[in-house]
């Protein structure tokens, strides 16, 4: 059983952090076995809730029924066209990934010339690295963020395009997750449209993420995660430049 399958239980009871949740949901889209397992765990949870039943106050019933009379139920979702799989999110088969990693490494070793790091900033070095791999995610609030990672430099840069401001008293914060560990802050991103270097080893990281946090940043990411970049599948649909 691969590592990600083991998250099914924690996912079903909402015990994953926002990043893991997003990663597992990507997996869930392709794993019928995990979908069945999660569904069975949710049925189990529904039975556990029987033992916790508490009759709500009558006022809640009135508010709920008053509330729904103001809201129109949505129509059923249109079924997804079977002919257009979302290629961007589909992880490549393991072997292909491994091959891509080998190629990237080889390119990195060949192309990494010591004379390249002269006066250019660290962020520019990553952006211009011959082995830089880009992954772009659209944000729920509009705009998009691109993660540029150079395996040979072991660094990554985030740069936004038309990203709205985080809001007053708030800031974008970047995160890196090493395999099997919690997300660790990779620094703040005060201006999302400005290329920003992530602190930490992006070469070994399993994922990067961006969240909205109170100004000054947080120790752990809030629930308000706006983008997740699973780096193990960074080969998918990227244009390696």
């Amino acid at each position, binding site marked *: 059983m691969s590592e990600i399958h*083991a*998250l*099914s*239980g*924690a996912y*079903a*009871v*909402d*015990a*994953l*952090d926002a990043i893991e949740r997003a990663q597992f949901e990507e997996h869930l889209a392709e794993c*019928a*076995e995990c*979908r*069945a*397992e999660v*569904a*069975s*765990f*949710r*049925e*189990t*949870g*529904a*039975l*556990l*809730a*029987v*033992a*916790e*039943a*508490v*009759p*709500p*106050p009558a006022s*809640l*019933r009135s*508010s*709920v*029924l008053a*509330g*729904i*009379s103001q*809201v*129109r*139920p*949505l*129509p*059923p*979702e249109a079924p997804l066209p079977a002919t257009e799989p979302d290629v961007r999110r589909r992880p490549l088969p393991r072997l292909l990934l491994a091959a891509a990693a080998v190629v990237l490494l080889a390119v990195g070793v060949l192309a990494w010339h010591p004379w390249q790091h002269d006066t250019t900033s660290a962020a520019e070095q990553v952006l211009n690295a011959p082995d830089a791999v880009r992954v772009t995610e659209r944000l729920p609030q509009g705009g998009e963020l691109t993660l540029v990672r150079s395996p040979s430099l072991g660094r990554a840069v985030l740069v936004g395009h038309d990203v709205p401001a985080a809001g007053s008293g708030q800031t974008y914060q970047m995160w890196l997750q090493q395999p*099997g*560990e*919690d997300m660790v802050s990779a620094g703040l991103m005060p201006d999302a449209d400005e290329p920003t270097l992530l602190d930490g080893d992006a070469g070994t990281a399993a994922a990067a993420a961006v969240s909205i946090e*109170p100004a000054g940043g*947080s120790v*752990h990411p*809030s*629930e*308000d995660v706006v983008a997740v970049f699973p780096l193990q599948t960074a080969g998918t649909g990227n244009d390696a430049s």
Partner: protein
Amino acid sequence: MTHLRSVPADPPPEGGGSVGAALAELLKRASRGDEGAFAEWYDATSARAFGLAVRVLRDRAQAEEVTQEAYLECWRHAARFDPAKGSAISWLLTIVHRKAVDRVRSAEASGRRDEAYSHKEQTVDHDSTAEAATASLEATRVRAALSDLTLKQRQAVELAFLGGYTHTEVARMLDLPIGTAKTRIRDGLIRLRDALGVGEVAQA
């Protein structure tokens, strides 16, 4: 598929039984704008929804808000409920649980959640619910199934599901190596599921 087990002949879980089918039917009528059907659906399910929210949030006022939000979402999205993918009650409780957990975590992020934790408090906190629960045969089965788990499995499942903690928090609380709590949670859920006779839900 061969790995799908058949549902045992024990009392069927309510999701699959006739009660479950009746709930699914109410939801279907609600999705077409039938407010009466939705009121019936609310009456049949609200004690579990509210009880779960109270358990996770430990605050009745917040639990009321979360329960109300969940029912509104349920009303809006009733047409998205697919009986082939699970029971109506588990669909509702999944929404309630997610909202309750998200609220607990965002409160925690802004420093409002009490960091101190006592496991005794957590498990003994059944008192307010005892009366409603003992009336139910199902509740007795659930308690029996829970008592069948290993201590660490039960604690892990309760802290995660009823406490709203992440698996890494659960690991710290139970002094488990990070990464093993998720396995305990999964093992505990598998054992509970099998003890309660929940058949795996076939997925397309």
